[in-house]
């Protein structure tokens, strides 16, 4: 009987210590990581549409996006949101900046775990430039009849990013098309 208890106890102690340590360090580091991630998000948003103030908003389908306004004239100059989809080996989150006519100003992949050297090349600006100036209709990989040339050896990653952006742009367009008055209302109270 002692043999079972001894084995169970040793494994319990070691796992408990490990879990305790992990939780303790997680407790310390989690807030820092969250706060740093938020700061990073704001920075990337500024980078996408420079010189704009952002107002948070939410589409009917639950996608939260930001309306970029010119600080002086309060006039809408664009939108930004985060599109996410499963790529080759995990979820890829891309932040997208659109102008008023829903043409892509710029994109930035903020979170991905694709294979280094192949899929992971989507974080380079060379890849982001491919998307600039495209409207949602052209947003397809060249193999599927669109304008985006698939990255060498990483078609799945390219297709995942492109489709994720396309879906969100269409969702945003529909939301803003049938809820123009919501746009006006939200801009006062948040400022």
């Amino acid at each position: 009987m002692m043999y079972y208890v001894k084995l169970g106890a040793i494994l319990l102690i070691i796992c408990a210590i490990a879990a305790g340590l992990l939780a303790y360090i997680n407790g310390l580091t989690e807030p820092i990581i969250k706060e740093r991630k938020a700061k990073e998000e704001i920075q990337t948003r500024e980078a996408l549409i420079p010189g704009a103030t952002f107002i948070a908003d939410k589409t009917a389908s639950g996608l939260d996006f930001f309306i970029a306004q010119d600080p002086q004239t309060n006039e809408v100059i664009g939108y930004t949101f985060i599109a996410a989809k499963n790529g080759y080996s995990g979820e890829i989150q891309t932040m997208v900046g659109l102008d008023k006519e829903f043409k892509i100003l710029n994109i930035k992949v903020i979170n991905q775990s694709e294979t280094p050297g192949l899929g992971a090349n989507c974080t380079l600006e060379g890849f982001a430039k491919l998307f600039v100036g495209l409207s949602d209709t052209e947003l397809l990989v060249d193999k599927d009849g669109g304008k985006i040339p698939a990255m060498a050896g990483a078609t799945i990653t390219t297709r995942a990013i492109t489709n994720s952006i396309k879906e969100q742009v269409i969702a945003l367009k529909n939301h803003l098309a049938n809820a123009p008055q919501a746009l006006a209302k939200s801009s006062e109270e948040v400022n």
Partner: protein
Amino acid sequence: MGYIGEIFVMAMTAIFIQNFVLARFLGLCPYLGVSKKLDSAFGMGMAVIFVMTLASAFAYLIQNYLLKPLGLDYLQTISFILTIAALVQFVEMVIQKNAPALYKSLGVYLPLITTNCAVLGVAILNTKAYRATDPTLAYNFLDSVLNGFFSGVGFTVVLLAMAGIRERLEFAEIPKSMKGMPIGLILAGIMALAFYGFMGFKI
């Protein structure tokens, strides 16, 4: 397409299209290490199928009934690895008792199933995978177990193919310095290229 169709799609994907060894390139250490002889390869294959199936099952239970409700997602890796390690230790005892010869020929590669990327890979991918037929539905318990099983079968199919070829390679005329592992690696490279053929399939 009904559930049978879903299983068929999952099987084909796991064995051919997204084969864990030759498409995702996970689980290569035992793949190269054990594929010298057919019988030890078969033994390893069975052990990996057993561990992968049970690991997927345990991983699903832990993820959905322990980690998610308590919001402890950062413990995912350690809890999955702990279950896999316990499973491998269990398999090691079973093999040592019932098949000592196989236990000898597997050697260090049996404990290495624990760090076998394929086993942990399938456990983690199951938590993020969506059904092929309608992507909105996430994997339920049965899907995860089946996917684990088929991934194990995929691993074994490729391992046996490799072991079969490498056994014949022993008698081929190979320059002295190429014998053994180097020729095995080049063979694995060519098989990987062949498996790229499956990559583009859409079922």
